[in-house]
């Protein structure tokens, strides 16, 4: 599990990879939150393209970052989600809080 942070202007990109569960979510949360605190973006893009496994801890990670961003009025976009991840995100109503783009290579 890893998070790669890239910054372009007022946008923070967080490229997540590996398995996202309760164990790895804590590390990812810290990495993203410190990038938000440091850069104060107007837009955070969380990319799930290279996540190989995700349980509901991923939903908690997204919801927590959404809450964090909305304090300063910043917006959250989510990219690269698989069909199964989308199913969980929809269950939590995340599609009403953030723009979600599914993986381009989904059948």
């Amino acid at each position: 599990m890893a998070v790669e942070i890239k910054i372009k202007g007022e946008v923070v990109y967080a490229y997540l990879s590996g398995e996202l569960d309760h164990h790895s979510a804590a590390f990812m949360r810290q990495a993203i939150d410190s990038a938000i605190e440091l850069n104060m973006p107007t837009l955070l893009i969380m990319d799930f393209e290279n996540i190989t496994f995700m349980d509901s801890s991923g939903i908690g990670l997204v919801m927590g970052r959404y809450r964090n961003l909305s304090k300063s009025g910043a917006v959250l976009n989510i990219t690269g989600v698989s069909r199964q991840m989308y199913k969980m995100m929809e269950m939590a109503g995340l599609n009403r809080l953030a723009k979600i783009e599914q993986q381009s290579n989904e059948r």
Partner: protein
Amino acid sequence: MEVTNRFNMNFLSRSANEAFARAAVAAFAAQIDPTLEEISDIKTAVSEAVTNCIVHGYKEKMGKIYISAEILDNNTLRVKIKDKGAGIENIKRAMEPLFTTVGGERAGLGFAVMQSFMDNVSVRSAKDKGTTVTLTKRITPRYSING
């Protein structure tokens, strides 16, 4: 339905074991030839149940988690995930989507995800004795074209 195969294991409630537990059950289930999507469903449901044992059962303290997985003769996987921790006072409420007792970073979706990805989820729990979650999923038989 008869049990044709079974394995048991137990491990400490360290969060590092979440990945191990779901991978072990998925590897055991491989003998009834699940699709990649079915494997992913099984791994996700097991991960939710094991995380519940760690976060709620033992409240991040060390305890033992017990998993017993069985293959039934109609191509069905049955997995029991048990802790000897706090127990659930109100199972019905615990199973409601978005309900969580810990707040913060937990979405409260554990049981909803288990129910959505498995055919059946049953919960037995007693206060201060622990919780057993039983997950069942039938794997659709596939036939190889190469014979």
